[in-house]
């Protein structure tokens, strides 16, 4: 049968899991993580932001003399109608993330800046592959570092497998260790970004389809009554909904302890917006999702770390369409009661032209793998060796970052 090749490739671990575990009660043979030493029952949520988040727009180095010039019309400022939220004397947070700012003040959130995976090119697909597979280069394996971490955990008599939130299991959680899937009941609809890309393609290749689709999209907006509002408003609600559901599942005594999910839409080539606008909407959604994790996990929030990561960053200088193009260094966010927060962790490279990576991107000075390894070690006690050889192969040089977890 000629299709076997692709067919096999398309299969995910989802199938095995759904056949095996129809309810939580059936998961009893799965690993137990609870740490005997201090009675904590740690949880880890990994949030992938697909499309390459603009780290400079999210956590802005207001103290860097070159920032305002590079980010131009979309740069954040200390004052004005929507002032950025100062994290320390140098870095400020995007104003659409008040919840994260509160967590940060409570020392339950931290920022790692000028961070990157080992990937140095500019393809989303390859960048996401490296971010999620945990390998140093793209396309090497069909399993993710979070799944391999799960596999390396000691087995116990109680709970739990990994939870893949969304219609498919993200690569980061795919692999030999069992996972369960959950998604809110809704037809995934085309977001504005996808629709815009398609209309653009049609405009160049098929004007009749461009006109039909544009009209269809307008009708849809008119029908749903949010003609004036940019569509990301829906994405915001969706992010909260997803987080709420995941938190509810993870809060259960026998619920999953490790989850992964992905939010799309961060590829801001044009009209990125500054304190308000497209990126602001998305960041508001992310902020809302973090708040939902916090409230949904209840008492368990104290043992939780949320890691927010993206495949790479964006150019330091804005482009000709008030957006940013694919770049390298970006940020990672940590949130949760178990985070030793209130800090922006960064070996700041500076934004002078000579300091930029290839003259255009924030130069990465921190290996994202070191951050994640630090979290995995502190939360679940994985050894240096397992982390360097199994979870993130060939990563011995990226030592686990110490002291990220309380």
């Amino acid at each position, binding site marked *: 049968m*000629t*299709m*076997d*090749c*692709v067919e096999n490739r*398309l*299969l*995910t671990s*989802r*199938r095995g899991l*759904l056949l095996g*575990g*129809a*309810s*939580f009660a059936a998961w009893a043979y799965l690993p137990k993580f609870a740490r005997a030493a201090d009675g904590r029952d740690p949880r880890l949520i990994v949030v992938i932001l*697909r*499309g*390459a988040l603009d780290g400079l727009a999210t956590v802005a180095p207001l103290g860097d003399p070159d920032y305002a010039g590079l980010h131009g019309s979309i740069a954040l400022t200390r004052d004005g109608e929507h002032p950025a939220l100062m994290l320390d004397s140098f870095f400020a947070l995007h104003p659409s993330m008040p919840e994260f700012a509160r967590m940060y003040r409570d020392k339950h959130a931290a920022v790692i800046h000028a961070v990157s995976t080992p990937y140095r090119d500019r393809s*989303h*697909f390859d960048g*996401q592959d490296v971010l999620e597979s945990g390998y140093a280069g793209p396309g090497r394996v069909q399993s993710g570092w979070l799944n391999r971490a799960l596999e390396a955990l000691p087995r116990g008599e109680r709970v739990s497998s990994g939870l893949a939130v969304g*219609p*498919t*299991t993200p*690569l980061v959680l795919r692999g030999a260790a069992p996972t*369960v*899937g*959950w*998604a*809110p*009941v*809704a*037809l*995934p*609809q*085309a*977001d504005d*970004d*996808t629709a815009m*890309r*398609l209309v*653009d*393609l*049609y405009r160049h*290749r*098929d004007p*009749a*389809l461009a006109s*039909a*689709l*544009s*009209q*269809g999209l307008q*009708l*849809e907006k008119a029908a*749903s009554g949010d003609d004036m509002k940019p569509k990301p408003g829906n994405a915001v609600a969706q992010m909260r909904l997803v987080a709420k*559901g995941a938190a*509810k599942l993870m809060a259960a005594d026998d619920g999953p302890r490790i989850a992964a999910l992905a939010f*799309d839409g961060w*590829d801001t080539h044009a009209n990125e917006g500054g304190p308000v606008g497209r990126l602001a909407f998305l960041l508001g959604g992310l902020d809302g999702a973090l708040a939902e994790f916090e409230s949904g996990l209840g008492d368990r929030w104290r043992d939780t770390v949320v890691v927010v990561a993206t495949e790479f960053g964006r150019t330091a200088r804005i482009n000709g369409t008030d957006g940013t193009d694919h770049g390298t260094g970006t940020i990672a966010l940590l949130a949760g009661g178990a985070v030793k927060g209130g800090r922006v962790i960064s070996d700041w490279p500076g934004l002078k032209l000579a300091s930029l990576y290839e003259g255009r991107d924030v130069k990465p000075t921190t290996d994202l793998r070191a951050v994640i390894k630090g979290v995995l070690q502190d939360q679940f006690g994985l050894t240096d060796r397992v982390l360097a050889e199994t979870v993130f192969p060939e990563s011995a040089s990226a030592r686990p970052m110490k002291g990220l977890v309380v």
Partner: protein
Amino acid sequence: MARDSQAALVALNRFGFGARGGASGDFVNAASDPRGFVKAELGRPNGVLLEAPGLQSTPQLGQAVFEYQAQVKAAREAATKAGTPAETKPGEAKPGEAPPQAQSAPPPADQKPAARRNLSLNAVAMDIAGQSPEMKPGDVAAKSTDAMQPNAAPPPAAKPAPQPLNVIQKTFRAEALARLQRATLADCGFTERLVAFWSNHFCISASKGELARIWAGAFEREAIRPHVLGRFADMLNAVEQHPAMLFFLDNQQSLGPDSRAGQNRKRGLNENLAREIMELHTLGVNGGYTQEDVTSLARIITGWTFAGRQGRLGEPGNFVFNANAHQPGPQVLLGKTYDAAGLAQGEAALADIARHPSTANFIAGKFARHFVADDPPPALVARLRDVFVKTDGDLKALATALVDSNEAWTAPLTKMRSPYEFLVASGRLLARVPEDPGQYLNSLNLLGQPLWSPAGPNGFPDTNAAWAAPEGMKLRLDIAVQIGSRLGNNIDPLDLLEFAAADAASTETRRTIERAESRQQALALLLMSPELQRR
């Protein structure tokens, strides 16, 4: 061997259901010998027949409906006697598939695309999901893996047990699945496209009632497929004598006014089938017939019916000629007198209509419009008409003439894929052999082409205006996004573009896919690209 990518696109998309992904090599094969690739399937007439385990004949299915109806009736009577409210029919509320209806009832609401199209998308989403938005662990994951892939997991035990499907729903789904699998696996799909064309030309609607629903697949297997590479006259005869068509266009109720049954009862002639035979099946609306001719043909085919549950006329569910209902005496049709009594009268009339010049014109135009362009090249239509006339309606010769024409290879790819073609092409490219038809049936309902259920006897429209409409495009995009988010995870979208169009893909399409934010998005954009939408 020379490689002609543009011709490969024509071979795969205009004539077939698009290239399959994986190791099929469809694109390369089509490029090396485009005409040969298309024609290969014409050399295998038996390959058009569809036999799958469990698919039953029209009489068997008729009896199954009669038994089912008797059971429902008995259950109702028992419930009434016991003083409890009658139960609903088992399986009535299966999401995404219209429940069977009593014979005279209007089509179910969710079968009407017009009503559905005005719903907000959220409502549609709920409609599709068929349940409330609250969280149900595992449940949705099971649902979402179900689509377009063979590995659907059984529903988790925690879910309240759904009503079991009744025999009508089971049959409909099994027939749909067999057709979908065949279309997904075919090398080119040309003969399956021909089946779909003729099935739509001679359409019935499954929304007519329980018998139509259970017979829809059998009708296509029995009356269409055996003749797709045979003679038009034979297909016409098979179609008009098939119980599904007789039921759909009410001929089983038609009585000759002077027949024995007609004299005893108040009912009389029903022109429905006779009119559609001439207007839609053969001569075309301007084909030169009059109201007199319609009435005459209606009289000629009185008595064409099927045996009911009591089996007084024959084995229940079989076609029978009921002499008691047949209008006696000679009839004049299109200027010719038909003397022969009984069934032979109608068969002779149909044979003449089949070779009428208007029929050749009508079929040639519709054939070229379906495969080549909304306004097909007149020279091509004329040539197809001549072939039809010269070969006395040899449909294999007609198909061959189309493939041999230059017009079919040089006309730009401007036709819009119908929703069915779009979904099948997507499944082929993703190498997903369906094992459950549910997602396809839902999507077809949403996109306005519910399987075997057109709104009228003229079938689904076959023009760009119909399928490239604003709402349709928006919904198509939503479905592409849904497929992308489910299946985009593990694929390399550029590989798929290579399978689908290779170097015939436009730079803009390639760039759009390369620059997509995620694989999921890239897959949605690929499925919506002009290369995948136009044929």
